[in-house]
């Protein structure tokens, strides 16, 4: 079989990804995590945080929950089922930081945990900040035009 033909054949015999099932669980688990986030936010607003000041403490609490589930080995299982439903919320960001931190402790506190802690989340922060920098420059240039 020619290489091109084999590549085509290999794609044909590949079991298909369960797109519909994955989408269903991503919706359910992602929705549930956002629901918890809304609960935290509403509760904080109830004790006096404003719509503006509530964001940071909500993020901290959600990150804590993500870290707790990661440390107890549950977040990994939640993602196997939920996929992006567990990865996309901020709890997934927390998982992406805490998992390598735990993972590389054997390689030492500095070269292991310290150096690898952003192995997974680093790209998100790097490109998020870079994009925000570009958009920020545009907004700065247009500061008289837009308000």
């Amino acid at each position, binding site marked *: 079989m020619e290489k091109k033909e084999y590549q085509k*054949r290999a794609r044909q015999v590949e079991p298909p990804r369960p797109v519909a099932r994955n989408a269903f669980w991503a919706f359910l688990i992602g929705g549930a995590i956002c629901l918890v986030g809304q609960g935290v936010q509403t509760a904080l607003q109830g004790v006096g945080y404003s719509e503006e000041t509530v964001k940071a403490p909500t993020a901290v609490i959600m990150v804590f929950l993500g870290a707790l589930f990661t440390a107890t080995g549950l977040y990994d299982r939640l993602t196997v089922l939920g996929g992006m439903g567990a990865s996309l919320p901020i709890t997934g960001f927390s998982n992406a930081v805490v998992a390598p931190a*735990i993972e590389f402790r054997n390689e030492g506190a500095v070269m292991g945990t310290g150096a690898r802690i952003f192995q997974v989340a680093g790209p998100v922060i790097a490109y998020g900040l870079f994009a925000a920098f570009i958009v920020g420059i545009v907004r700065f240039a247009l500061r008289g035009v837009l308000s």
Partner: protein
Amino acid sequence: MSATQIALAGRGHLAFKQPPVLTSWATVAGKKETEGPLGRHFDRIVRDETMGEKSYERAERKLFTGAVDLLLSVAGRHASDVDLLFAGDLLDQIVTANFAARDIGIPLVGVYGACSTSSEALLLSAMAVASGSVRRAIAATASHHLSAERQYRYPIELGVQRLPTAQWTATGAAAFLVEDPAERESPSAPAKGDGATLRIVSATVGRVQDYGLKDPNNMGAAMAPAAADTILRHLQGSGRSVEDFELILTGDLGRVGHPLLEELLAEERVHPRERLQDAGILLYRDDQKVDAGGSGAACSALVLGAMALPRLRRGEMHRMLLVATGSLHSPRTYQQGESIPTIAHAVEVEAVR
């Protein structure tokens, strides 16, 4: 003894004129492997995946040492009786074999063939013994699911969905003792139970194949062409047909690679039918969530030691071909966008009364 003890018949095919004897073997398997169809046939079971060690790399090493120690004890040998150790694993710089050999003390030939390491080590052991310069050699390999995850994929606690084409690295280790036929007549060498004598009559060294596949989550498809090439060259070199074998055991093509291999062989009018079985499919049950099947250096070695060799020993089969396959990429070559080169080495074992 001279170099003519091994005849090079065709490209990469080695016929052993005085076939070395595969006298004993030992398998150590992890918990998930024990829950599979071959569960009760493993010699030793390890339930704790850390094995009381502080890292999974150390745990893998302990699996490896455990298999070699167990082999020496069932063979009634000491490490000092063994001339050479051919061993390898999946970790960077094959640290499992290298570090374990520090304590075992047998002169080491470190081997890397990814998941084909099992048959590569066995092939080299047979070559060494057949050359007449070595009386006794051990072939050994190990893999650990969690150390392989660290090596090839993501941090363990990081949530990542498994893909249906992905394979599950087996946790376990196996070691095989290959002896000069004259040596094993010595009274101090009890065979592993009564039964047939297992002879390694020939072998075929793999050629690296690359059909341009790039997905490390689908290694079975990448490796099938290597298995096909080696099987065809083995048949050609040995002058046998597939009907001469009761079992052609590939490892580890899984559920995706296995049908592709059948297709590639069928193109050459070779139809092994149910003789062709894959270690990656045999090691686990369908419901064990391993997706396309097992993999890892230990996978084919465990199936060989727990299923294939005992059947030969008991006289249920007379001839088999082990064709372990390996994916030779590294995480770095994958990230640089390169395709996956693969290899397969074949070892033919026959049972004689």
